[in-house]
């Protein structure tokens, strides 16, 4: 008879295989039908796959903006909040998953930055946000979207994806003209900026990663350390003006 | 008008139940037959015009309701652009004669922003660009005191009459009109009810009539993939709401114009202002609009604005007895009689007169340039002293009109006021620009040369410099 931990391992592996099969299934559907396939997989799976392709943490606003043309999915901001809560509940349950959606952590206190999403199977330093990481992550996200748009074929969704890419390019300071999509130029411009910051940013993140790994438990390393108490006037019976 | 006079006139207007005129003449000349009107509705905070009503007065206006005012396609503005260009061409053929009625100052602000957007827009058609330039020229002319081109109907009512409500309520043209309408028996209540809907060039958005939010929603819907039938219905509703909104603004303007002319104020004493306004407009329309940016150009423009203000004030005081009466009480006009005439050779220089007044407040000072109201006589104040009678005696050296017997003879009753300085220092400021004077164009003041300084306070030095 298998031990419990062996069964858990097997369960994890089966979950991973199931996710893989579903991903292949949707790709096959899309190729076979020729028409647009409306993606119905669970949101968490879509986001995990998206992160896997992007190979960088992504901001939920960016995710929502590409999901519309990619999967015909409107993802309201509140949905991400629910997703975060569900993922933490799932972690706390007795049914482990091979990989979790998790948040990026601040480099100094290991607290969650709830809009930045990552995968639990990435190295810790790739899930940390240092003083300049926000810039780097925006640039990497922009680069990824532009590459997606560049590879997209024709059709209404490809058009929408191009406009999302143009917005990202404009935000990155690229020259953007109506109807013109010089993807290669945009990527070159953005990569030059990434190069400017990436080395020093990585050094900060690696150092922070090794410190946080010694301080925080597994759960906190995925979903953030709990915040300390904040004194709000009037919430304590003993509060007086002087103690605020 | 002083605050006390304003307040007491409001009390009287409240008692009388109607607006009371505060001038005896109009500051606006009679409408030419070519007078036109423009009313607009804008998107709040976007400063984008979304509807325009325009046309000749006395007829139903042309209406433009813009389905997508924020979009790049401005072909819907072409009818307005062509209308404006035609009006300007007529003005140029008639020596700058142009009169444009607008409901209130918000309309001019909206046209100015429209002008800013398109007057240098390389992507717009020539007609739209010209429209933009014309709008900028008109908005610029509107800031000159005494201009005769733009008739802001709400401001004209405020300048010529006082109502029995608070000044802030006078900011609402429809509420203000309740005080000019003899059919309204209770203007206090009527005005407060009318102020429920805005009258400032925006759509209504009250809980029972959310026109603005509705248009916002319809425009968003129109951008989604709609069937042809549904799209037509949505666009039709947008047009209907916008057209009704801008028609209301036009109707307010027409009512305010009628109320203004209904005051029956004579349009006299405005020739100088008409002339100045037409010349400014013609020059700008022919040469183009060039906003002043360089220091010398800004200085010249400030002088022009100041000069227009003075000339307007002088014209008003000369023509308007009611205004002159108020100015007299404030000491800005001296009403008195000629006590003595000192002129060794009749009809020749030198000539001075002594004028005595029983006014106890006069604001004239030595060296002020003054004119005698209603004549061509002007001079410089040389002395002011208390008269033995207890009034004030003023000695004036006559510079122009030394041959005027009627005005300068002893015993003649005259009114004296400050002469408006109409001189604009164009030449001086241009020369300063050519020399690159540090005060305008440099960052570092020049080092002062060593030397001896005059002793004494600046006031003492100035006194010593006066002509005896």
């Amino acid at each position, binding site marked *: 008879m298998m031990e419990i931990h062996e069964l858990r391992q097997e369960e994890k592996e089966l979950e991973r295989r199931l996710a893989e099969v579903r991903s292949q299934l949707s790709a096959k559907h899309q190729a076979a039908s020729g028409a647009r396939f409306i993606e119905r997989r669970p949101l968490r799976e879509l986001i995990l796959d998206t992160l896997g392709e992007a190979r960088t943490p992504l901001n939920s606003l960016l995710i929502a903006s590409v999901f519309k043309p990619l999967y015909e999915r409107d993802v309201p901001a509140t949905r991400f909040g629910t997703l975060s809560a569900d993922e933490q509940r799932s972690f706390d349950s007795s049914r482990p998953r091979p990989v979790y959606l998790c948040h990026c952590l601040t480099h100094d206190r290991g607290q969650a930055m709830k809009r930045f999403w990552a995968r639990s199977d990435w190295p810790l330093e790739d899930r940390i946000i240092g003083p300049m990481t926000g810039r780097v992550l925006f640039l990497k996200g922009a680069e990824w979207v532009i590459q997606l748009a560049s590879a997209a074929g024709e059709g209404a969704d490809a058009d929408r994806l191009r406009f999302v890419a143009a917005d990202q390019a404009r935000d990155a300071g690229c020259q953007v003209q109506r109807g013109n999509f010089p993807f290669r130029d945009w990527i070159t411009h953005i990569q030059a900026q990434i190069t400017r910051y990436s080395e020093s940013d990585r050094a900060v993140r690696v150092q922070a990663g090794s410190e946080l790994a010694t301080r925080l438990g597994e759960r906190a390393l995925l979903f953030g350390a709990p915040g300390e108490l904040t004194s709000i006037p009037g919430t304590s019976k003993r509060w007086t003006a002087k103690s605020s | 008008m002083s605050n006390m006079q304003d307040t007491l006139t409001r009390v009287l207007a409240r008692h009388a139940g109607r607006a009371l005129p505060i001038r005896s003449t109009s500051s606006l000349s009679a409408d030419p037959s070519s007078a036109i009107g423009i009313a607009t509705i804008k998107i709040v*905070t976007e400063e984008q015009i979304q509807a325009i009503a325009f046309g000749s007065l006395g007829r139903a206006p042309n209406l433009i309701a813009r389905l997508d005012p924020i979009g790049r396609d401005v072909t819907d503005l072409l009818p307005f652009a062509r209308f404006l260009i035609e009006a300007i061409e007529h003005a140029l053929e008639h020596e700058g004669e142009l009169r444009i009625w607008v409901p209130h100052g918000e309309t001019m602000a909206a046209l100015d*922003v429209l002008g800013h957007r398109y007057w240098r827009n390389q992507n717009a058609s020539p007609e739209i660009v010209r429209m933009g330039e014309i709008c900028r020229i008109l908005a610029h002319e509107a800031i000159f005191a005494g201009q005769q081109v733009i008739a802001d109907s709400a401001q004209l009512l405020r300048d010529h009459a006082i109502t029995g409500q608070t000044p802030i309520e006078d900011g609402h043209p429809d509420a203000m009109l309740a005080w000019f309408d003899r059919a309204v028996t209770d203007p206090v209540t009527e005005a407060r009810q009318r102020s429920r809907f805005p009258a400032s060039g925006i759509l209504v958005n009250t*809980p029972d009539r959310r026109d603005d939010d509705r248009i916002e929603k319809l425009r968003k819907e129109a951008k989604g993939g709609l069937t042809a039938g549904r799209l037509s219905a949505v666009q039709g509703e947008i047009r209907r709401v916008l057209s009704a909104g801008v028609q209301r603004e036009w109707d307010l303007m027409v009512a305010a114009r009628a109320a203004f002319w209904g005051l029956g104020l004579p349009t006299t004493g405005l020739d100088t202002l008409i002339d100045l306004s037409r010349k400014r407009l013609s020059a700008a329309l022919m040469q183009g609009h060039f906003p002043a940016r360089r220091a010398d150009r800004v200085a010249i423009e400030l002088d022009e604005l100041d000069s227009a203000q003075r000339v307007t004030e002088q014209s008003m005081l000369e023509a308007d007895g009611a205004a002159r009466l108020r100015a007299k009480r404030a000491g800005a006009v001296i009403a008195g009689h000629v006590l003595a005439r000192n002129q060794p050779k009749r009809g020749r220089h030198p000539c001075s007169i002594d004028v005595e007044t029983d006014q106890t407040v006069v604001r004239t000072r030595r060296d002020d340039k003054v004119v005698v109201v209603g004549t061509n006589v002007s001079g410089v104040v040389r002395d002011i002293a208390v008269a033995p009678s207890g009034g004030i005696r003023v000695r004036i050296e006559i510079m122009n009109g030394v041959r005027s017997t009627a005005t300068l003879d002893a015993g003649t009753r005259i009114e004296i006021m400050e002469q408006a300085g109409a001189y604009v220092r164009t030449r001086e400021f241009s020369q300063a620009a050519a020399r690159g004077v540090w005060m305008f164009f440099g960052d570092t003041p020049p080092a002062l040369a060593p030397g001896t300084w005059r002793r004494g306070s600046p006031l003492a030095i100035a006194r010593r410099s006066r002509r005896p």
Partner: protein
Amino acid sequence: MSLKGATALVRLAQNPRCEVLGAMVMQEGPETRFFERVVGTPYDREYGERQSSKRRGTQFERNAYAGDARLLREALAPMVGLQPDDIRVRNLLDDYPGTKDDARVARLRITRRLLADSLAGRAAPHLIIQPQLLVPTKPGPRPYFFIAPDVLVWMQQFGLYVPADLKSFVVRENEVSRADLARVRLQLGAQSLALMHEYDHVSGGKTVVPATGLLIFSHPNGLRPHAPRTEDLRGAREAVRLGIEAFLRHRRRIDGLRAGAEPYTVTTDLVPHFEEACLAQCVMSEWCRSSVAGRTRDLGDSAGQLLGNIELARVTGLLLGTTMAASDAEQAIAAELQRIANEYGVRAA
């Protein structure tokens, strides 16, 4: 929209003497609901922000914060004293999005930490987007006001943060209407006061916060930020401080009257302070106006100040000669009224 945060403080600063305003600030729920409960009928005039304005404001903020706040970095670089690419940015909505109280508390915690980091010389962002601050009042209902500037900008000149607010209304030739400017200055004043409190919190009162704030308006086209305007906030800070003091006084009185009931229940016992400006911004203006009905203040602030808020009937009596002047001042008023009446041909009704 209920009266809270900087909006409440601005209104209190503009009219500190009005007890009805104090009750509205204390009362939970929107102002229009307060009106309905006091007056007994729904509020039928326009109220709140239009969808078209919200859209523009949202779009302007979106543009300003996009690309790690690229446009803001470019606009504010001279103030920070660094090249735009070297400016560090932290957007607290990335940490904790949302407008509910738990999100505000979380952002307040982070803001306090960042202020402490900055004072201690640790690497802190130069721009903090959507920080959260707090102004405490003394114990009682509404014990604090949450204040949220759009940005805190670290200014090289002071070595400290100053508040900056983004305003999406159009500015031409760098001119803003006086009424708009007065209101936004008071808003900045409230933010500066809140920042003073937070700096006190982290530094034990050792930091002198400059009375400076920044306003960032938008260009007419494209919603790009205009060059920032630096505002002197000494007057605004003091006005807001006086407004808070007034609110504390009103709160004490209202608490004494209401004995645990909701604040709106005692509105008829409160003393309003009706001013002309109320007509442009307060839902209760017509209700409060009834306190000056038939008096000279009903004709405006100037009339009330000059004539002393006497009854209009008395003034009319002076005009008609049916009321004896009780002082030299009233005699002068009577004479002037009669002169003006003769001039305009106004006679007794």
